[in-house]
């Protein structure tokens, strides 16, 4: 169980760092959101699952599982809400973005 927890924690922290790298390097908000929305369920969620596996306690594992399920439900909602708010307040995508259905439907 300790090996599983170690691997889960390392994979989760690497996913979190890659999401932060994407936030630093991508050209505009919408591509950055694409990287950041994965940091919740994959990065923090896998670390939580690893912590639950490391504890060896069923109740702690269930709480970690609840945190993971909550992150899976919540992360797309907040990313969609932020993208919609930015698009409505006139934050233009980068020039190489070819599809913008919100602009075309107006």
């Amino acid at each position, binding site marked *: 169980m300790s090996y599983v927890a170690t691997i889960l924690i390392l994979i989760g922290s690497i996913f979190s*760092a890659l999401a932060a790298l994407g936030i630093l390097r991508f050209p505009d908000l919408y591509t950055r959101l694409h990287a*950041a929305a994965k*940091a919740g369920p994959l*990065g923090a969620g896998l*670390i939580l699952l*690893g912590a639950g596996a490391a504890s060896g306690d069923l109740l702690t594992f269930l709480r970690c599982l609840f945190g993971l399920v909550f992150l899976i439900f*919540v992360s797309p909602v907040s990313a969609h809400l*932020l993208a919609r708010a930015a698009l409505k307040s006139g934050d233009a995508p980068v020039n190489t973005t070819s599809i913008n259905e919100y602009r075309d439907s107006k």
Partner: protein
Amino acid sequence: MIEIAANIAFAILGLGLLATVVRVILGPTLADRILGLDTLTTLGIGLIAVFAVRSGFYLYVDIAVALALLGFISTVAFARYLLSRGSP
């Protein structure tokens, strides 16, 4: 062995926090800064979970879950503010 993995995870998450703080400072628009703060909260959840493993106090997992809830609420509030503010 899991202590070494926790230390490595601390280092990796610290680098991620540093990159996100740079984006929050640089971020050209308000939405970029909101995104950066949301990601800071997410990285904080991971950091607290790793700290729970490192110290052996698994009560910290509850704090991580509560921080996830708080981060979602704050992002929704900031997005509503961005919507109500309109175009600058």
